[in-house]
């Protein structure tokens, strides 16, 4: 079981969280973005083999979304932060 450091609650068990997907995506504007921009946003993924920035939802804790940089080849967590903060640590 992974241990994820919630920026608010501290280190907590993986089971308290639910995975919420790629955190590198920037949501297109609701009113001005094109169908292609939305298509790319909703469907396409970098799916990198290595450090991956992703969101986890601390569902059974503070219910905040947390940004996590995790190496998907080792599951090592490099850094965590709030959804609008910059992640420290290595990786891209």
């Amino acid at each position, binding site marked *: *079981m*992974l*241990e994820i450091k919630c920026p608010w609650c501290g280190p907590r*068990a993986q089971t308290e969280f*639910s995975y*919420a997907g790629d955190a590198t995506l920037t*949501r*297109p504007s*609701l*009113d001005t*973005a*094109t*169908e292609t921009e*939305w*298509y790319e*946003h*909703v469907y396409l993924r970098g799916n990198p083999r290595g450090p991956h920035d992703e*969101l986890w*939802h601390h*569902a059974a804790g503070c*219910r*905040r*979304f947390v940004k996590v940089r995790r190496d998907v080849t*080792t*599951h*090592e*967590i490099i850094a965590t932060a709030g*959804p*609008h903060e910059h992640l420290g640590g290595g990786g891209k």
Partner: protein
Amino acid sequence: MTGQAFRNADGGGIDRTKPLTFTFDGKSYQGHCGDTLASALLANGVRLVGRSFKYHRPRGIFGAGVEEPNALVQLRQGARTEPNIPATRIELYDGLVATSQNRWPSLKFDIGAINAVLHKLFPAGFYYKTFMWPAKLWPMYEHFIRHIAGMGKTPTEPDPDDYAHRFAHCDVLVCGGGPAGLATALVAGRSGARVVLCDENDTFGGALRSQPQTIDSRPAMDWVRDTATELGRLENVTVLNRTTATAYYDHNMVVLDERVADHKIAPENHEPRHRLWQVRAQEVVLTTGAIERPLIFAGNDRPGVMLASAAQTYANQFGVRAGERTVVFTNNSSAYAAAVDLQAAGIEIQAIIDARNEPPAGDLTRAKDAGIGVLTGHAVVAALGNHAVNSVTVMALNEDGADVTGEPHDILCDLVAVSGGWSPSVHLFSQSRGKLRYDDDLTAFVPDRSFQRERSAGAANGSFDLSECLSEGFTAGAKAASQAGFEAAAMAAPTCGTEPELRPRALWAVPLPDFLHGKRFLDLQNDVTADDVGLAYREGYRSVEHLKRYTTLGMGTDQGRTSNVNGLALMAGRRCEAIPAVGTTTFRQPFTPIPMGAIAGADSHDHVSPTRLSPLYQWHKDHGAPFTTAGYWMRAQAYPQGGETLEEAYLREAKHVREKVGIVDVSTLGKIDLQGKDAAEFLNRVYINGFAKLAVGKCRYGVMLRDDGIVFDDGTVTRIAEHRFLITTTTLHAGAVMTHLEYLAQVEWPELDVRMISVTDDWTGIALAGPRARAVLECVTEGDVSDVALPFMGFQETHIAGAAARLYRISFSGEQAYEINMAPGHALAVWEALLEAGAADDIIPYGSEAMNILRIEKGHVVGGELNGRTTAADLGFGKMMSSQKPFVGHVLAGREGLNGEGRQQLVGLIPVNGRSRIPRGAQIIADTGAKTPIPRLGEVTSQCMSPNLGHPIGLGILANGRARIGDTLQAHSPLTKQSVAVTVTDPIFIDPAGERLRG
């Protein structure tokens, strides 16, 4: 010691004053407290204990611990029976019952042994090459293969025992309680760190329990006892015996399996049978010791061939002679100590056959002092005998070990104690992603680089000398504690009696001379031989992974503990490559097999996933309602009266509601309280329709889409106050909608001032519906609920039956209806008050089935229609989609494929004959006689008998459905051999103008 012919009068850790009776294959024997089943069987001279997997060869006891590949038995009887338990791992208790496996009709005479005769036809992978013709006979061949395979038998009754889980956190976890582990735990424990120490055995001491040594000139076991006592007294140390570190996962989480009651006939006083620990450790120290490897020669599987350390364990720990006369066959120094101990236990040592040409002088002196003859540069080429060994054939090895030469000579013996060197137990290390290194001097893989916060010490680290084990343990304990933030006092290693280095000679399989036949077994459990490696090589299965899968080497319950290294070394030899270049197969969890019950803990059966109950649950139950699940919720289906079937009951209820009045428990709907200055704007973005102008005290129906433009969920939104809304969701999507809204608010639109909380549990919901609904309501509230004060889609905060309540005039049934929300503690009172107040109006409770009928009659969509593929337009919500404002999903909803020709749209269906039920799950087609594949125009998503219309109806989604209204098509169910002609209609069957709900 009745009948225990092989038990010595003294020596060992057993309690001779406590005789225990057990049976094996129906025959009764005696053993002692402290025995394992294996030691007790050997004490009684029982040597044949099982049959092998494929050839059904007779097999005996080979090891003394987790490495045992052979002696697997069916333990216990009835509901507690368990297959495949190694006799070496079973602590004897009084009344133990064990039976041998994989034989029929008996262990001594096994029909399956015919396979051994036909063995030539059955090399590794033979089944890939045959049984293909005629193809239709394969099921028969397979039936035969399956019955030959397998081992023990599955219980046929549910498990009567309890299992528990346990989460734990510590600074230092020590896996393995031999000298290295005890030393580690001692230093770490004294530092004040939170320490957990576990060992799979009943007592601590590891190898010292069976290999007597000295520490500070005293018996090493004294030190073990002192240390264990001190550790037991330290409050910051948790000491767990009978506890296997079974799995090492990411982020230093190690799973331990504690066998709380396996050493008893049954668990006592409510204790769980196993307790599964999930330990999160700052630092882990692996002190799991090492396991002896065998040497491979013809007939090396016969009962009586045994690991030297195992024979030594039986002698020293259990006072049991594993034979009368033994030949010790080794390629390293460790067997010399074993030989001396065997001799001391009264076993006659015929000779030590040492593969090395020049064993270290110390070994030779030791043998000489004990009067044991040593034959150097020799090997056992074959063990002879049938149900047990009776002699071995010995020959000289040539210089490179690739051949045997000279005169063969036979030595009589009933025990062959073999040692092929030692393999550190690196399983957990590998599971933690650690990288191994091959050590040529030890002829073994040892830990090299760690990737988690973990280190190895002692034999697990390739250090076999006791003083080295202790000093490595002290160092590891100190390092781990200080890494975890504690100040650890270094400890000086005590002086120990010296043990010679192993100095093994690599010898992976003794060559088989031409004049001899016989199989040289690598994997005793799966009957994989040295020749199978050759075959795999020849056929191109040369990667160790192919070797493993083609031959099944190491795929048994012992996971190849004693066979893998020999197998891959043989393959390396074939490939003319170095052993590290060939590599190992992957070590996987678990370390040793653990019962599935232990893994599930308390989380099985009724607790496999949570159940949620409405505050009215008990009332429903008391009134005879059967329940159905909706997500975690249990919902009352109907209230059958006096002998009614379920269907009769819900048809009656559905009719009654439209004619009179009824109440239904709708507590399961999701409810979200949304507050904040931007709440209205937030809703505007989330729903396809507008909410900015919704007045305080009004409700509105809303539909939300996913980002991809498909309908996500629907429900109502009520404006409670200027900046406060109550959102309802469907039962099934409540969690997902909440998460979706939180995501949007927190991550995407942080600029909006909104906060939300799920209030599903805080408000119980009761819907009151039917033409007489208002009349009933008026009896239980003092508020004004007239049509003017509370019109359709109106909202009030009021009191009902004395309880503070939220009252919504919304309708799912299409009738005049109210949804009443109140605090759950009051729900029962309100429910009963409504029934009482409504008695004059003939009120009834109705369940989820009638509710479903009412909504189908009104063409409301739920699960079958909101199937994650339909768009708002498909479902008839096209006009609701606002063009005034953007909302989630609107862009991708515009994609070509989600619009235009051919989309399946919501329609109603009525049987043409007015009678036939529309088959459940029917597909809608034009022509039942068409050629396969028959085009599917659509599908029936819901159907029921409409008690109010007097004929069956259905909802479906149909290609170009709205344009097909009036057409006749087939609702076709070949699965149930039903086909009903249906007329396509508007999906709203009752009161399309909505007069009833406004009335």
